C-alpha cells in the first residue's frame, strides 16, 4: 500500500480508517510521551511492541531476525549491504562487486556505491525479466551480492527466482531483496522462501505509515541466520516476558540510526498488521494485483504496453506511440494532473522509452480506476487532435509547467562557480 499513484494528491496511503487507527495508537500517551533516554524498565511496553513487530515481519517475509533501525528504504539497502560486506569480510573474503539489474530502483546502485562496491549492471531479457545468461556471465568470486526487486519495477514477477538464487549462492554471493514492491505478494509468498538472504521492507509503503510529506519513513531489514551476528545493535531480546536491549554484539555493524529507529512509525505499522491480520494482508496484495490488471486491460490500445501481461501490482506503459504528435510521457502526466489525478511515475524504469508507471494499489475503487482510464483515453485522443492544447496543460493548478531544465542548469552554474545566483533562497517572511 504505497502512495496511491493514480489518486488526487490529497490521499497518500491506505484507507482512511486504517490510517486513523494507526494514528490513534501512535498518539497513546504511553507511546507518544516516551523519551529515548528512559530506563529500559520503564519502557517495557515499547520494547514489547518492537519485539512483536520484529516477529511479525519475520513471519511475513520469511527471515530469522529483523532490525527496525533504518529510517527509510535506501537506508535499509545500505544497512543490508553493510551486513553482507561484514559477513564476507568475517570469512576473509574481500568481494568488491554488487550486481544490479538495469530495471532496478536507482537507489540500488547508489547504496552499493556508497558501501564501497563496484556496481555491475545485469541486463533484462526481452520479456522484461532478468536475463539468466547475462547474470551467469557477470557472476564471479568477486560478487558480494545481487540486489533484486521482485516483482521488478516493470511489475513483472521474476519467475526464475529460484534459479537466480541457486546461481547466486553457488558463487558464494548473497541475494538481497528490495522490498519496495512487497505489497504485490505479501501474505501470498515470502522472499525468504525464494532464497533471499537479506530483505528490506518499507513500513511507509507496504504497512501504511505516512510518507510523501506526511512523516519519516522506516525501512527495517530482515536477515537469515548467517547475517544475524552483523545486525545493527542494540537488538531487542526477551526472556520470561522481560524485554532488554542487547548491545553486546561484537560482530555488529553498529548503530545505523540514533536511538532505536523511527519508533512512531513502528507503532503505526504494528497497528496496521494487527488490524489487517494475516488474511487481511493477503487480501490487500490480491486486490492490488487485481486493480493493476483491471486498469492494464483498459489501457490496452490506448498506450503501448511493451511487456506481456498479466502484471503484478503495477504495470509500465509507454507513450512512445504519441511521439509523431510531439507528445511525451511528461505531457500525459501533466494532462492527468489537469484531470484531478495524481500524476504517475514517468521516465522510470529506464528500460522503457517514455515510460508511464501505474500502480493503483488495493485502495482504489472500480469507479476510480474507470475514471482514470477514461482520463487517459481523453488525453491520448487530444494528443492526436490537438496536441498544442495538451502542451499548455495544466491550467487548473496553482502552477503550470515548471522550468525544470532552466532551474537545474542555473543551479549547476552556481555550484560550478559560473554564476553568483544560488537560484533557491530561504527568505524570512514578515508577518
Amino acid at each position, binding site marked *: 500500500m504505497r502512495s496511491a499513484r493514480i489518486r488526487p494528491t490529497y490521499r497518500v496511503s491506505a484507507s482512511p480508517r486504517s490510517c486513523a487507527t494507526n494514528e490513534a495508537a501512535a498518539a497513546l500517551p504511553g507511546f507518544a510521551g516516551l523519551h529515548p533516554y528512559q530506563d529500559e524498565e520503564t519502557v517495557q511496553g515499547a520494547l514489547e511492541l518492537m519485539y512483536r513487530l520484529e516477529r511479525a515481519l519475520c513471519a511475513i517475509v520469511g527471515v530469522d531476525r529483523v532490525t527496525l533501525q533504518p529510517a527509510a528504504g535506501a537506508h535499509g539497502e545500505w544497512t543490508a549491504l553493510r551486513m553482507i560486506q561484514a559477513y564476507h569480510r568475517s570469512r576473509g573474503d574481500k568481494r568488491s562487486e554488487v550486481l544490479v539489474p538495469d530495471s532496478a530502483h536507482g537507489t540500488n546502485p547508489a547504496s552499493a556505491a556508497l558501501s564501497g562496491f563496484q556496481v555491475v549492471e545485469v541486463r533484462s531479457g526481452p520479456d522484461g525479466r532478468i536475463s539468466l545468461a547475462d547474470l551467469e556471465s557477470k557472476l564471479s568470486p568477486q560478487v558480494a551480492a545481487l540486489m533484486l526487486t521482485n516483482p521488478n519495477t516493470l511489475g513483472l514477477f521474476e519467475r526464475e527466482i529460484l534459479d537466480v538464487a541457486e546461481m547466486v549462492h553457488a558463487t558464494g554471493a548473497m541475494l538481497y531483496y528490495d522490498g519496495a514492491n512487497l505489497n504485490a505478494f505479501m501474505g501470498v509468498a515470502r522472499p525468504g522462501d525464494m532464497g533471499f538472504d537479506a530483505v528490506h521492507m518499507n513500513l511507509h509503503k507496504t504497512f501504511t505509515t505516512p510518507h510523501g510529506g506526511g512523516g519519516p519513513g522506516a525501512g527495517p531489514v530482515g536477515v537469515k541466520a548467517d547475517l544475524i551476528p552483523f545486525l545493527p545493535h542494540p537488538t531487542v531480546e526477551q526472556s520470561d516476558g522481560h524485554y532488554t536491549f542487547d548491545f553486546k554484539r561484537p560482530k555488529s555493524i553498529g548503530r545505523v540510526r540514533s536511538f532505536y529507529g523511527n519508533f512512531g512509525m513502528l507503532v503505526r505499522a504494528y497497528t496496521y498488521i494487527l488490524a489487517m491480520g494475516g488474511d487481511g494482508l493477503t487480501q490487500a496484495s490480491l486486490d492490488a494485483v487485481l486493480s493493476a490488471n483491471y486498469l492494464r486491460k483498459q489501457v490496452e490500445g490506448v498506450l*503501448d504496453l*511493451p511487456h506481456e501481461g498479466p502484471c503484478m501490482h503495477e504495470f509500465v506503459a*509507454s507513450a*512512445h506511440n504519441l511521439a509523431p504528435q510531439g507528445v511525451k510521457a511528461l505531457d500525459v502526466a501533466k494532462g492527468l494532473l489537469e484531470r484531478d489525478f495524481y500524476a504517475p511515475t514517468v*521516465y522510470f524504469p*529506464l528500460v*522503457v*522509452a517514455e515510460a508511464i508507471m501505474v500502480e493503483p494499489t488495493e485502495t482504489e475503487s472500480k469507479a476510480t480506476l474507470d475514471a482514470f482510464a477514461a482520463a487517459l483515453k481523453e488525453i491520448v485522443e487530444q494528443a492526436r487532435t490537438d496536441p498544442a492544447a495538451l502542451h499548455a496543460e495544466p491550467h487548473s493548478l496553482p502552477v503550470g509547467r515548471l522550468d*525544470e*531544465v532552466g532551474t*537545474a*542548469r542555473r543551479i*549547476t*552554474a552556481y555550484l*560550478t562557480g*559560473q554564476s553568483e545566483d544560488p537560484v533557491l533562497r530561504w527568505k524570512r517572511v514578515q508577518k
Partner: protein
Amino acid sequence: MAERRYSKTHEWVTVDGKTATVGISDFAQAQLGDVVFLDLPKPGRKVGKGEAFGVIESVKAASDLYSPVNGTVAAVNENLTSHPELVNSDPYGEGWILKVDLAGAVPTDLMDEADYKKAAEAGAH
C-alpha cells in the same frame, strides 16, 4: 577514419590521425532529454574502451558515459560546462565531449551509421 562510428552505449567517435573525438549520438540526446550537467575527466586521464569516463545528467536521468576507444584524454569540451544544451542542439558538432589521444588501433566492433540506426531503433521499443 573521418566517418562517424558508434558504440552500443550510444557514444560516437571520429578519428583524425591519432586523435579521436567522442560525443553522444543524436538518438541518445533525444532519449535523455534536456542535458543539465556533465561530469567530465581531466586531460591526461587514461580511458579504456567500454570504461565509464564521466556522467551526463538530464532532468530525466543520470547516465554513465563510456569511452568507445583506448587512449588518454587530450581535451574536454569546456563549453559544455556553461552550455550543456549544446549536446542536445548539436550532438555531432559543438556538442562534442572529449578528444582522446589514441593508444593502438581503433576498435573494429564499432557500428557505422546504418547499423547503429537499426540497433538504436530496435532497442528503443
